[in-house]
């Protein structure tokens, strides 16, 4: 693989490299304006929290190729089914973009993991993960989705996929779609009167 091919496979064309570096640069003019704007007071929030959220929203971490790859992976992990929509329907990729800025310890494993994935895909199929066929993508995922039967050399992919799976689950099941899918019916005023009778009976706990 020559340098141009590698860069392309990794989504790092000259243009996107520039975008990426710009996005990573702290305190670009645009961001500073956003931070310096007088924050609207929000009940129950300290001023620094409101400002922090604002500046995180204004910053950009993942580039287009990375976001596209995250979206494909998230929908492989949590697809649409008879009960609810997919991870991207629930805006999981947008959540992941936010959370890696909020929790910077996610940044290197995510960026590095995505690079590992693209490089692996290129070596295997001469295409970045995003540009590989759906069948090729699944072949790769099959090799990194099952930690207990990992093949030698694939460990970094497993570690990345574990993280990607966790972030996807967090993002999906804390969305409106996901909470409904799960059947969580609380967070509303009610009167707790104990375990329903049919449930007590189901588990034989009537006399405990």
């Amino acid at each position: 693989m020559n340098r141009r091919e590698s860069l392309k496979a990794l989504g790092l064309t000259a243009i996107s490299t520039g975008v990426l570096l710009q996005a990573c640069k702290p305190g670009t003019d645009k961001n500073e304006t956003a931070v310096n704007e007088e924050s609207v007071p929000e009940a129950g929030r300290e001023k620094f929290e409101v400002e922090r959220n604002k500046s995180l929203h204004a910053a950009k971490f993942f580039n287009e190729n990375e976001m596209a790859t995250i979206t494909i992976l998230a929908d492989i992990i949590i697809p649409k089914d008879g009960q609810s929509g997919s991870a991207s329907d629930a805006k999981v990729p947008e959540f992941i973009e936010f959370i890696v800025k909020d929790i910077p310890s996610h940044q290197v494993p995510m960026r590095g993991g995505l690079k590992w994935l693209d490089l692996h895909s290129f070596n295997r199929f001469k295409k970045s993960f995003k540009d590989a066929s759906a069948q090729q993508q699944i072949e790769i995922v099959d090799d990194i989705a099952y930690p207990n039967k990992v093949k030698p050399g694939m460990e970094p992919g497993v570690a990345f996929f574990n993280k990607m799976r966790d972030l996807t689950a967090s993002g999906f099941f804390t969305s409106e779609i996901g909470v409904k899918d799960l059947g969580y019916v609380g967070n509303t005023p009610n009167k707790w009167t104990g375990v329903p009778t049919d449930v007590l009976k189901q588990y034989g706990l009537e006399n405990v």
Partner: protein
Amino acid sequence: MNEFQIKNSDVEYDAIIVGSGAGGGMAGYVLANAGQKVLMLEAGAYFDPRVDAHQLKWPWESPRRGASTVRPFGDFDASYGGWELEGEPYTQKEGTEFAWFRSRMLGGRTNHWGRISLRMGPDDFKCKDGLTDDWPITYQDLKPFYDKVDRLVGIYGTVEGIENEPDGIFMAPPKPRLNELFITRAAKKTGVKVIPGRGSVLTEALPGNKDRSPCFYCGQCGRGCKVYGDFSASSCLVIPAVKTGNLTVITNAMVREVLTDKAGLATGVSYVDKNSLEEHQVKGKIVILGASACESARLLLNSKSAAHPNGLANNSNVVGKYLHDSTGASLSGFLPQLLDRKRYNEDGVGSVHIYSPWWLDNKNLDFPRGYHIEYGGGMGMPSYGFGGGIQNRNGKVAGKDGKMKEAGGYGAGLKDDYRRFFGTGIGMAGRGTAIARETNYCEIDNNVVDKYGIPVLRFHYKWAKEEINQAKHMQETFQELFHTMGGIVTSPVHGPENNYGLEAPGKIIHEVGTVRMGDDPKNSALNKYCQAHDCKNLFVVDAAPFVQQGDKNATWTILALSMRTAEYILAEKKKLNLS
């Protein structure tokens, strides 16, 4: 401000209270209701749960979905502050570790606490094994005040007649959840005692109180309650006390030191306004510290004068010493029999529905004092971290087709696993008695100041075999309970290499003991009414006066002690022993 100046107020208050948490809040409530003109200084912001609580918000209303990035107990938690405060460091000594949680807000840490409201028992005040120093008071001395706190604040529980777990005046407790019934059944088999929880949540209307409504069972006490259905010092004490017209509260007021006159009596305090950075001095006939155990010790040690060269109330040299936090260790996992469970609302209350008071005799064990167990689990509202590490669970049980699954995975099958596992989790956490030792302490670090120029605290705290062996016993008990239930443990199983999962001191946020009471001024800072031996118009009403904490959470005892101290102050004023 170009020129340095100190703003002096001519008003002399009957009392100045530093801190607005359980201790300061109760003292302010009692004194203001008795007609005393009181000034309360709070180092943090104003907070009224009715307005500021994030109660009933959904996870998607937080961009981090409730993650604990900014607030240690999650984005919706009530607490302003945490383990680290910007510009307000603390230091550690000789490689030891102490974690110090500071809530800077009206009501302090009572805004986010677990509402678990336990009385200390007779043996906690006067020990039977002779290992630790006795309190200058007995359970019987404090009992009338525990009773009054129960009536004033409201608490649920059941009368059990356990000698060292004294009963209170209880409302009906919430019924156990499904996972708690499994725990109760397993505990019976293993000989671990399980009883209904004891929490300061109104499961019934509080007689005579029109400002607070009963609990509506969202299980979110830690976010603060908009109907004041649980106890926090802001909603139950400080805000009602302000309504008497006798209590003035100044927020964002960081107290520097207690001021004294030539005779050594307290005359007021100096503080810095955190917003304007202006310096202030205010006058009071009495000064009452309720800034939290360590912050009150810091204030006293920083209040040096000709009359008190070793720091105020510190002729005994005990201020800062005997620091102790509850021990803590935990285990978690899931119950396979709860897979695919029926959905219904089991949020319940935000405190414990059941718990295990200490049930064994330490004479037969290799550690001297006991612990209680708190249990968690159920179909709670999803938050950041939901479904995390599914690969450590879904390979351990059969799928719907009865065949074992390969751990991990993706796709429709994985999506269904998340649904199947919802509400199967169980957590157990022990909270035990740690020994109060002179060698565990906080002191002033003379080399470091905070951003207001106030010298900071340096901590020195080591666990010993009394605590480590207790944590070992906790782990064995939790594993036995899991085994008996047929549960599967998924958290790391701890061993001697990390003290059996014993949390670092401070982590349980029950730190007490730094300005201890006693009858002998040579080895205690306060008398039995929490009045300084060396300065009769100075009182401490937080957890600093505790001589030796039991395995019980500190708040109910802080409230009872503070009420007793405030009533003592009123009685002494009547007798003209205090001006």
